[in-house]
């Protein structure tokens, strides 16, 4: 945590702040031109505008300990139960990735590079203000990230069993969750009790209920909200307090519901319905959703750990006892997780097929960040299986930098055209 702020570092930080602000403004300048956007998106816009305008105001100003999290295998319920505020630190800034580049090999995950860059430079203050950063050892990058971040912030690594279907894996994970509990209790000096856990579970349940409702609205034939806005809503979960996020999403849902009744969509029905899956899409890297929708597609759902997967699985409290609740939380964060670091790819395939059916998806875009090996490895068998099920697919390999935007646009446009052609062939109408 000892930090020698050299001139070079300070320069780097200043530059990163500047570039981040530029890219954020660029995004919202484009958004400002859009018509027909739900009004209830404003709180989310305000949150992300703060990345440029007031980085200190991104997190809610609460006098509580802040716990940084990576991945979605850390149950946030426990953090809330300990009286702390969870902040998801997964980052999507190309500029921060540049700042963190020196710490990683050439071909490495931009998400990790970006997070390390933010932490190293402190361009976003909350990366350094976290009282504890919990990193589950999921992919190789996360395993090593802990070591790098521990120079700047206190880090708690969680062992994640990769072959999760065995009993030993489960019991092991239960113990890891208990270790997390103790660390959090020590941090906040608050005992995690049954009642606190119960309250935090219902807090998350409320958010999950709204999120599921939001997802169901997205499943509507009418495209009520753009895929990028959906990503924005989900991304906001990273930084917002659960209760206020739930409130904002509820208002959004109500608005979308009204729009649904008045038949007001944001994307014409003629747009082919696309599913995005693979590596996470995190603000400000909304490159792929924007490209898909600018190319005439409708991004109706996603299977990403940054949005669609985020708040889907709900913890069940089967017995009203503390240990059972903890086990339930441990199970809900590990067992249904379709992250490709786990050995069993079947869960993800089944989930994708189900989403393709439920959301009437016409094409699947596989998003692979350069250096995100698990997704890359899982892609080949998955592509074959989805192709066998008759699904059109496009694989995009990219990173956070906006340099490859134009070639990608070409490919995505071509893909969307193919989908339109298929729809015509199968006798569909526009």
């Amino acid at each position, binding site marked *: 945590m000892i930090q020698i702020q050299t001139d070079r570092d300070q320069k780097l930080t200043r530059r990163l702040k500047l570039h981040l602000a530029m890219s954020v403004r660029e995004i919202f300048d484009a958004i400002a031109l859009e018509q027909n956007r739900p009004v209830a998106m404003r709180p989310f816009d305000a949150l992300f505008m703060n990345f440029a305008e007031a980085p200190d105001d991104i997190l809610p100003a609460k006098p509580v300990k802040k716990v940084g999290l990576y991945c979605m295998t850390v149950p946030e319920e426990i953090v809330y139960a300990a009286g702390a505020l969870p902040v998801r630190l997964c980052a999507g800034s190309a500029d921060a990735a540049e700042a963190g580049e020196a710490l990683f090999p050439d071909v490495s995950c931009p998400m990790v590079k970006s997070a390390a860059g933010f932490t190293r430079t402190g361009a976003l203050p909350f990366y350094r203000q976290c009282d504890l950063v919990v990193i589950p050892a999921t992919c190789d990058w996360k395993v090593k990230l802990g070591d790098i971040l521990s120079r700047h912030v206190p880090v708690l690594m969680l062992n994640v069993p990769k072959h999760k279907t065995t009993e030993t894996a489960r019991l092991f994970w239960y*113990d*890891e969750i*208990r*270790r997390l509990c*103790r660390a959090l209790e020590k941090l906040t000096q608050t005992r995690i009790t049954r009642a606190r856990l119960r309250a935090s579970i219902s807090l998350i349940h409320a958010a999950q209920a709204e999120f599921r409702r939001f997802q169901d609205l997205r499943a509507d034939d009418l495209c009520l909200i753009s895929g990028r806005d959906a990503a924005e809503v989900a991304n906001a979960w990273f930084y917002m307090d659960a209760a206020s996020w739930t409130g904002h999403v509820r208002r959004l849902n109500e608005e979308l519901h009204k729009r649904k009744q008045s038949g007001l969509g944001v994307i014409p029905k003629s747009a082919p319905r696309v599913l995005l899956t693979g590596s996470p899409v995190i603000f400000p890297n909304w490159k792929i959703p924007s490209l898909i929708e600018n190319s005439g597609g409708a991004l109706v759902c996603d299977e990403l750990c940054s949005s669609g997967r985020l708040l889907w699985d709900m913890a069940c409290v089967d017995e009203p006892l503390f*240990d059972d609740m903890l086990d339930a939380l441990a199970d809900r964060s590990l067992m249904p997780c379709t992250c490709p670091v786990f050995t069993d790819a079947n869960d993800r395939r089944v989930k994708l097929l189900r989403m393709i059916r439920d959301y009437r998806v016409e094409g699947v875009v596989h998003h692979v960040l350069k250096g995100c090996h698990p997704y890359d490895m899982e892609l080949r068998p998955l592509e074959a299986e989805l192709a066998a099920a008759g699904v059109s697919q496009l694989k995009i390999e990219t990173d956070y930098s906006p340099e490859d935007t134009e070639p990608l646009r070409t490919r995505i446009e071509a893909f969307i055209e193919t989908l339109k052609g298929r729809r015509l062939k199968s006798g569909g109408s526009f």
Partner: protein
Amino acid sequence: MTKRTRYITGLMIFLFCLLFTRQAGADPGYLWLEPGPQMSRAGGGDTGGKSRAEHRNSSSSPAAASRQATGHDVAGSTTHAPEAPTERKASAQADPAKKDEKKPPREKRAAMSHPAHYTLMLGWPPGPGKSDESLLAVKAAIIRPDGSTQKLSPGLETPDVARIRDAALIQGRYLISASLRQTQGTTRYRLYTQTVMRNTGEKPKGDVLPDQTDFETDKARLVMEDLSPDPGKNFARVHRKYTGDKLPLRMHLNELPLAGQPVTLATASGWRQTLQTDEKGEVTFALIKESFHDEGTKKRPVTYFVTSEIRKPLNSQDGYREEVLRAALAIMVYPSPLDWESRSAGIYVLVLVMAAVGVATAIRRRQRRRPCA
């Protein structure tokens, strides 16, 4: 009186009895009536069950033979053929009745009636008694349910035993009593016994239960009266007492209740219990031994003996220095589940297993849920 003194008294009496038997071999001991082998009744008797009859024949030298076979479990086993052990306790009690129901119908009176038939025994219960022609001097009498009283003269039967018999044809409660007077040196012995028999059969003409007629002229008359309640129509219990039943007794001396008199209950295997009568002269025994025992598991009836004795110095002109009054009662007790089922053992095992498994589980779970560093 505390328990301890009661035990000490019992022990002293026991020791005294032992001492007495050794030293004064001439002491006659107690007189009691043992239920004898059933009289086979010509014409109407136990015609139905051949097997039972045969069985009875095969063990026809009743008292002596069975005494050898079963230790000191006395003759009663021959009156009721030992039945195969049944698995339910209720059926153990209800079985004789059931058995009779299942048999082909026969003349009711004959089947259910039960002649009075007793062997006179002299000796030191619960040790083996002896019965010989010297007991022909016993004065015996029966009071029947209809109030009729009859003196019974003992007869000598085949294996040289003295028995008294009565046909006991009518239904109700019979009181059979016997007494023997003996003198040995300067001691005068008065031995009494009295037993109650219940019988089914014809109803008495008038349902009069008689007063106890004084049929014996002895002044100092010690009576041990069996106060067991009438079992009513529960035929299964007409002749029987079962382990666990209560045995209420009343002691009279010259028709006056005898208070504070030690009364001893003993079995052939040597278990004994001594209680004292209360001011009404009553005492109640529970017919179950204090420790768990194995005779019961053989599921054969056991004879319990109740004895009581009064000694008093005498200054008579005849030169007798001491008078000994003794009363005895022999009771056949049939086994009940209490003999082979131990509730305390059951609950003990249950609690033990629960404790052991509970502790083991607790320890194991403590290990599992140990805090992780």
